[in-house]
């Protein structure tokens, strides 16, 4: 079986711990970069750094409760910074679920291989987008397109960036 997707029992998967304040600082930095980088590089708006951080810490911490609470925290902060046309809870709900799923999957799969990280980030990006559209359509009665080529490309770009970003975030782990 491929190393990247090798299924193991939960007890054999290492739970990574991080340096003090690493999760908070990485989260705030992701939000800050997300809200200021596209001014200078418009194409950077395609990235969803808060989502990548949610996925990374979910996969690494491997605790569903922590993962979903971190996802909720990041999502609500992102909602707050997105202006009044984005109601509080839109990103919150999507990232809560992604945080939960990432932690649950992280507890069952070895996700250290770059290929696994690429595939999982792609899948989580699509799921995240689906949850946002679902929330908009069902709870807010706002018509929204499910998926298009632009979002497919965005998923690919985010998955690619995730591979390198996750390597960078690995350095925050406590040995």
């Amino acid at each position, binding site marked *: 079986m491929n190393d990247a997707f090798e299924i193991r029992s939960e007890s054999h998967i290492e739970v990574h711990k991080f340096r003090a304040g690493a999760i908070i600082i990485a989260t705030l930095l992701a939000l800050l970069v997300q*809200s200021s980088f596209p001014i200078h590089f418009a194409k950077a708006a*395609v990235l969803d750094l*808060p989502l990548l951080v949610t996925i990374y810490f979910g996969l690494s911490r491997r605790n569903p409760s922590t993962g979903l609470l971190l996802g*909720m925290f990041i999502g609500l902060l992102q909602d*707050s910074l997105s*202006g009044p*046309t984005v109601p509080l809870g839109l990103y919150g709900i999507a990232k809560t679920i992604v945080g939960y799923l990432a*932690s649950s999957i992280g507890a069952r799969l070895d996700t250290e291989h770059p290929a696994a990280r690429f595939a999982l980030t792609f899948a989580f990006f699509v799921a995240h987008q689906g949850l946002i559209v679902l929330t908009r359509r069902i709870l807010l009665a706002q018509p929204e397109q499910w998926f298009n080529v632009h979002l497919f490309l965005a998923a690919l770009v985010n998955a690619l960036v995730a591979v390198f970003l996750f390597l960078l975030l690995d350095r925050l782990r406590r040995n």
Partner: protein
Amino acid sequence: MVAIPSRHKSLVLLAGVIVLQVLMLAVQIKRDSEGRLIRVWTVGAVSPFERASSYGFGWVRNTWRHYFALQNTTRENEQVRHENDALKLQISQLQGKAAEADRLAALLNFRQAHAEVPMIGARVIGTGAGTASLTIQLDRGERDGIRKNMGVITPDGVVGKVVEAYPNASQVLLLTDKESGVGAILADSRIQSPVGGQGEPLLVMKYVPNDDTVNLGERVITSGMDRIFPRDLPVGTIAEIKPGNPFKQIRIKPAANLERLEEVLVLLSLRPLEVKDEGNTGNAHPSTPGAASPPPAVRR
């Protein structure tokens, strides 16, 4: 009391957190202002860092431009660009005034009244933290006189309107956002119709019947009917026309470069821009079927 198995605890927590956020969404839909406090705290906490990063980035860029690359040429170029921007605005205003002079004196007075609309310059320090809305954040807020629903422009054209004003910052909904729109008129054919965003770089002009003649490259300017923007500010140019049912599908390239905004002007006026006499609008005609009452140009 029923004990929850430990392996289900996280699932219960997930359900609880989701229900809580769904309730929060429901409350916000019912009451528009709900959640403002959380936004004020978050924006208040983040905007100093955004401002610092914006100035830091600007400092690095300016240092590079002025000291390492073509020191004098860049300065002269910037000066010429600023003059060019000012001239563009002047030309646009003069064109509007000339057209008004050809029409009626009352309309000319109305235009002159708009020239007195106070404006304030603001620096763009951030964007929306996601793709769900197209917003930018300015480094000026309520303390500088900025209020919700004020118009935002650049010398090139319309940018959007203020959707939230905080003490030291404000958020602007860009014209390209799906929730955004502006009352517009075609500069040559004088057809009136709202122009709105689609979440894409191009805008759409709605409610122009297939019978009306519209040309590619025709200029689109503000009509003033939305009572936010004065008349004759550039909105964009027609980039694409397709027949539709029942209206044409017209796509417009925005006049302002909405993807690279650094500094903008906020129109410091919430005074409704009244059109006193409908007969004074010259040969302008709304293209909507209900000509007497065109659809509201700016929503929310």
